[in-house]
């Protein structure tokens, strides 16, 4: 069968085999690489279904891709085949305020959805740093989250229904607009975080949340990252749940200052950004409580004075991961070992061990992340033209992954496993991983959906 002709028949000009185009689809934001043989940009469920059926019949790998902002190679076709660029399926199909839900296509950009929801007084809370460009489909496939998940939960908590194309092209719905259901397996939850290995998401029904009336930001600096971690544990155990709780170690702080010298940030130390939201009164009260609890441990602590001050700090924080070359133009941040997580109580220990690893391998590192949910983004940076630094980098990343597992945590808190972390699945899950293999086999017996991922 002439696959090229068949694909062209389905999507017309939204098909490419140009070597340059294929190259652009051979990577995401991670270090994983893999060249596709075809790229198609479907615009309807029917097109996706026809493409997947064609691939299934001919045993050609199919890898779905959103904006390609993933950090684990999830959208990279490591076994070749077809890349489905889903970013053109980007319509918001329904805004159902009465049911506090929306129905969207997978290519809708997270920020774009929130721009549309704002006038209604609602928002879709999971907010990865890449919210300006990442797609909802990608967020669901990788159970993405971000700074506010400490209070609002991850993408998993907001999906009510998925329209999914299965490996043989069959189209199913996994849920409904119902708030609850006690009828059978929860396929919605199974599909979330499945990284395109069980089906291709073509529509999503999402719960939304009312926008809080007020937000406050407390900025606290500490003598060490470990001490900062202790302050966080103390805050939570005093009954405050911030809407964001971020750590920026001293290196990250310097990077942010270089990125935007006008930011109102502490002069030195390891910083925690505590955000609280609610009504004006409740947010104010929570902020005061945080100041009271953390003051004895902090070098400095203050409340952000204006909305703009807050917005500028959050905007810069979102981009800190990529901004490291502002500190040293010869260094590039490489996303490996960047997403580990541990139970909150273990965070100070993880911070200590991460520092040790960075020193042992003589690699400068930024430590930042969602400390309130135990998720640490360790940013190692190297001179990409230095082979030896690459070698040390990979060794350090391996060590950090194993440390997280040892501390009862996870190798990925929100970026996913993809092809970058598959080798740790057995160690993290033990016999449960065999159950995952069985599920994969049952739903994709020919192994055409995103092969080479999740360690499967």
């Amino acid at each position, binding site marked *: 069968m002439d696959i090229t002709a068949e694909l062209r028949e389905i999507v017309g000009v939204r098909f*490419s085999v140009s070597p340059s185009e294929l190259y*652009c689809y051979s990577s995401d934001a991670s270090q994983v690489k893999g060249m596709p043989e075809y790229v198609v940009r479907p615009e309807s469920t029917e097109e996706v279904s026809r493409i997947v059926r064609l691939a299934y019949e001919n045993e050609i790998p199919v890898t779905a891709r959103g904006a390609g902002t993933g950090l684990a190679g999830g959208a990279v076709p490591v076994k070749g085949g077809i890349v489905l660029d889903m970013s053109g399926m980007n319509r918001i199909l329904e805004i159902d305020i009465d049911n506090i839900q929306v129905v969207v296509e997978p290519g809708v*950009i997270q920020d774009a959805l929130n721009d549309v929801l704002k006038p209604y007084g609602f928002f879709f809370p999971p907010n990865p740093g890449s919210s300006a460009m990442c797609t909802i489909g990608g967020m669901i496939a990788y159970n993405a989250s971000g700074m506010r998940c400490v209070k609002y939960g991850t993408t998993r908590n907001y999906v009510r229904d998925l329209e999914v194309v299965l490996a043989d092209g069959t189209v199913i719905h996994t849920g409904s607009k119902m708030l609850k259901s006690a009828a059978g397996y929860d396929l919605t939850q199974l599909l979330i975080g499945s990284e395109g290995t069980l089906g291709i998401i073509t529509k999503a029904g999402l719960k939304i949340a009312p926008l809080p009336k007020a937000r406050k930001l407390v900025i606290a600096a500490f003598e060490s990252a470990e001490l900062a971690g202790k302050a966080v544990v103390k805050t939570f155990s005093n009954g405050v749940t911030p809407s964001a709780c971020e750590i920026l170690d001293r290196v990250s702080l310097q990077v942010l200052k270089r990125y935007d010298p006008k930011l109102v940030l502490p002069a030195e130390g390891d910083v925690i950004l505590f955000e609280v939201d609610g009504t004006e009164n409740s947010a104010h009260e929570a902020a005061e409580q945080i100041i009271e609890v953390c003051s004895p441990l902090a070098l400095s602590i203050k409340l952000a004075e204006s909305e703009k001050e807050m917005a500028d700090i959050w905007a810069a924080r979102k981009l800190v991961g990529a901004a490291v070359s502002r500190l040293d133009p010869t260094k590039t941040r490489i996303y490996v070992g960047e997403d580990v997580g541990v139970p909150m109580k273990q965070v100070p220990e993880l911070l200590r061990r991460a520092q040790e690893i960075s020193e042992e391998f003589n690699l400068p590192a930024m430590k930042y992340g969602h400390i309130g949910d135990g998720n640490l983004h360790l940013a190692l940076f190297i001179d990409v033209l230095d082979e030896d630094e690459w070698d040390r980098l990979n060794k350090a990343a391996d060590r950090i992954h194993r440390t997280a597992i040892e501390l009862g945590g996870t190798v990925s808190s929100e970026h996913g496993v993809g092809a970058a972390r598959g080798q740790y699945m057995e160690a993290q899950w033990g016999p449960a991983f065999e159950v995952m293999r069985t599920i994969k086999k049952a739903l994709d017996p020919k192994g055409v959906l995103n092969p080479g991922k999740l360690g499967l």
Partner: protein
Amino acid sequence: MKAGEIKKAGKLCENFEIDRRSVYKCVQCGTCRSVCPVFDVVGWESANTRGRMLIIKSLLEGREPSEDVLPSLATCTTCGICAAKCPAGANPPEVVEAARAQLVKCGITTEGQEKLRSAVTTSGNSFGETKSRLHWLPESERLGLPEKSDYVYFVGCFDSYRYPEFAKKTFEVLQRFGVTLLPDEQCCASPLLRTGFREDAGRIMEHNLEQIRKVGAHTIITGCAGCYTTLKNNYPEKLRVISLPEFLAEHLGDLKLKRLPLTVTYHDPCHLGRHNKVYDAPREVIKAICTLKEMKNIKENSRCCGGGGGVRIGYPDISLELAKKRIEDVPEGVDYLVTSCPLCVRNLRDAAGDVEVIDIVELVAMALE
């Protein structure tokens, strides 16, 4: 090669040399994907900045350059919004221009590029026009131009040949301040530099420098954003260059402009605004004349008109789509969309529909009458 594998090393195009660090600065985060105006209308990964950086990286790492890189590398308008947003501090327009220069050396160009090059190198202007560059100036005035002056008005190809009325109006204002014209101005070289013809550009820049020396000017004033950035940032000699809006803003007191009962909006030309941070001067001039109602995206976030980087000539359909998107940013209830670049005027007019697009000098001329 097996499916899924990347060709690691191959035959390097002997001539393909770019500063590797400028390319490796890109961490492929995709921030640019959310702002690249060309990607917005084309939709393929190769048509956004990250795609372009990846393709350039692949060429550096040994992929043989071929014509199939052109739909990616030749469609960048060099608007620079990606550079403004890049968290890693990369400067993609510079990298793209450097890559185009390398492709030119490897003999890989578009028809549009060649057309542009041929026009500029044979006629000294980007349209291939053969008539005098100063045809808009009555002969008597031409002969009476001061041979020496501290200030010279660099007219540019667009105002010389497509909008001579802009040139006329601009010169009418500038003459009051003793500004003269170059005896034999040629294209500023922007079209050549943006599209990779660096050697040809060098020759024409040297010609203009010689002209400037002849007049003895220490300051060059121009009403074209493309000429402005080129003269200011690309010429081998450091020149003092002032954009027309900056000059007008500086001399508002002398101009005695009358208030007009108009409401206008303003489009920031990429090469004046984002590339050179001239945001306030045009707004100051407009506010001295009438009411300014801003567009949806302004200053650093301003969207490209689609005309730059050789895209208008090479990919007119894409260029027009960009202009249409920019027109969507025009607020309700304005009399004019004002800008300060003739290339933006031309591209926006093509897409404007009911919106009337004018150059800032036209607004000033109305207020002088």
